[in-house]
C-alpha cells in the first residue's frame, strides 16, 4: 500500500469510535432510564456515522476491493488499534459515563487540532464531528457532576469508576510510528501536546464534582499496538457475528 502510514493513522482514530460506539450500542433497551438509554444510543449513532466517513476514506486509500464494512467487521482482534479505555465494559452507569467523559475530553481536544490537518478529508471529518462531540462532552460532564456531587452512593460509585478507569488515560497520549510520520507530514495531531490540557480539564471537572483525582502513576497501555484487554474479544464476537456466520450478508 502506497499510503500505509495514512491508512494506519485513520484506523487509529476510527477504531476508538467504532469500539466505543459498539459499547454504547449494547445499552439499547438496557439504559438505566429511557432518557439515558436514548442518549447513549444516539451518541453511539454519531460515533458510527463518524466511523463510516473514516473507514470509507481508509478503503479508498487501500485502493483494493476493501470496503468500509470489511474494515469494520472482518479484522482480527490484534488488528484493532483502539485505546484500551474504550473497550472497557459497561460495568454500571457510573463506569459508562466515566469512560465516556474520559474519552470525550480527549476526543474534543483531538478533533480541535485535526481540523487543522493538511489532509482535507480528515480536516472535513473533524470539522463535522466536533459539533457532535461537543454535545457528547456536555452530556458526560453533566453526569460526572450529577453523580459525583449527588448522593453518598452515587458519589462512591462515580469515584470507583474514575479510579478504575484512570489507568487507561495515559495511553491516549502515546504515539505510534504511523502517528509520528503523520505529525511530521502536517497531517496528524501531536497527541503528546494535548496531555496537559486534558488533565487540566478532567481534574477541574472532578474537583467541581467533589471527586478525588486519582494519584496512581501506573498506567496500562497496548491497545494502540493491538494488544488488548480480555474484554475486546467478547465485544468483537458480538460485533462480527453476522458477517462471520453469514459472510457478505446484507440487509
Amino acid at each position, binding site marked *: 500500500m502506497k499510503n500505509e502510514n495514512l491508512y494506519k493513522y485513520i484506523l487509529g482514530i476510527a477504531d476508538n469510535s467504532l469500539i466505543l460506539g459498539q459499547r454504547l450500542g449494547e445499552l439499547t433497551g438496557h439504559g438505566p432510564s429511557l432518557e439515558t438509554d436514548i442518549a447513549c444510543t444516539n451518541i453511539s*449513532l*454519531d460515533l458510527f456515522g463518524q466511523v*463510516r466517513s473514516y473507514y470509507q476514506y481508509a478503503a479508498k486509500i487501500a485502493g483494493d476491493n476493501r470496503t468500509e464494512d470489511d474494515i469494520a467487521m472482518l479484522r482480527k482482534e490484534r488488528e484493532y488499534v483502539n485505546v484500551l479505555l474504550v473497550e472497557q465494559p459497561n460495568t454500571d452507569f457510573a463506569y459508562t459515563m466515566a469512560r465516556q467523559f474520559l474519552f470525550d475530553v480527549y476526543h474534543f481536544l483531538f478533533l480541535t487540532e485535526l481540523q487543522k490537518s493538511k489532509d482535507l*478529508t480528515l480536516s*472535513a471529518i473533524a470539522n*463535522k464531528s466536533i459539533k457532535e462531540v461537543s454535545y457528547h462532552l456536555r452530556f458526560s460532564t453533566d453526569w460526572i457532576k450529577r453523580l459525583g456531587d449527588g448522593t453518598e452512593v452515587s458519589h462512591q460509585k462515580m469515584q470507583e469508576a474514575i479510579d478504575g478507569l484512570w489507568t487507561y488515560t495515559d495511553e491516549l497520549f502515546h504515539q505510534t510510528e504511523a502517528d509520528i510520520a503523520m505529525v511530521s507530514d502536517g497531517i496528524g495531531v501531536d497527541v503528546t501536546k494535548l496531555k496537559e490540557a486534558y488533565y487540566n480539564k478532567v481534574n477541574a471537572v472532578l474537583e467541581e464534582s467533589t471527586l478525588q483525582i486519582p494519584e496512581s502513576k501506573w498506567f496500562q497501555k497496548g491497545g494502540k499496538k493491538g494488544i488488548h484487554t480480555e474484554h475486546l474479544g467478547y465485544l468483537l464476537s458480538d460485533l462480527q457475528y453476522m458477517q462471520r456466520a453469514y459472510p457478505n450478508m446484507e440487509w
Partner: protein
Amino acid sequence: MTTTEQNIDQILIPILEQVSDPEIPVLSIMDMGVVRTAVIENNSVKVQITPTYSGCPAMDVIGDDIKAALKVAGYNSEIELILAPAWTTDWITPRGRKALEDYGIAAPLSAEADISVLLEGKRLVKCTNCGSKNTRLVSQFGSTACKAQFQCDDCQEPFDYFKCLK
C-alpha cells in the same frame, strides 16, 4: 463564519423542493439547507448534499429520493456527500423553521440560548402547542440525535426541540 455558498440551477429547485427529510416530512431538503450544489451537465444532474448528523440514517434515503425525483423529471443524477463546510442549523430557511414549528418541533435557538436550556435549565423554548415559554428539558436527546425532548408546564404537552448545531 462558514460559507453558505450554494449553486443550484433554478430549473431544479421545484424538483428538489418535493424531496423531504423522511423523519420530518414537512421539511423539504431545500428548506433544511442540505443541498449545496445542483447543476445540469449533458442532461445529467450533479448534486452535492451535506449530512446533518454523521450517523443520520436519513441521508441515504434522501440521496435515493433525490435520484428518484430527478428521474421522474427526466434526469439521470449523481449524488455526492460533502462534509466541508459542515452543515449547521443556521442553514434552515425561515420557511423551514416555520414548517418545523407547525409540525410540532420547536426550531433551534441561538448557540448561547441552546446551551442555557440544555445545561442550565433555562426556560426559553417556546411550546409548539400553546406558545408558552414555561417549558423544561426532559432529555438532552430525543427521538433522533438532532432533537431534545421538552415538556410544557402550562399545557403539559411534550414536544421535540431541534438542537442548535453550529
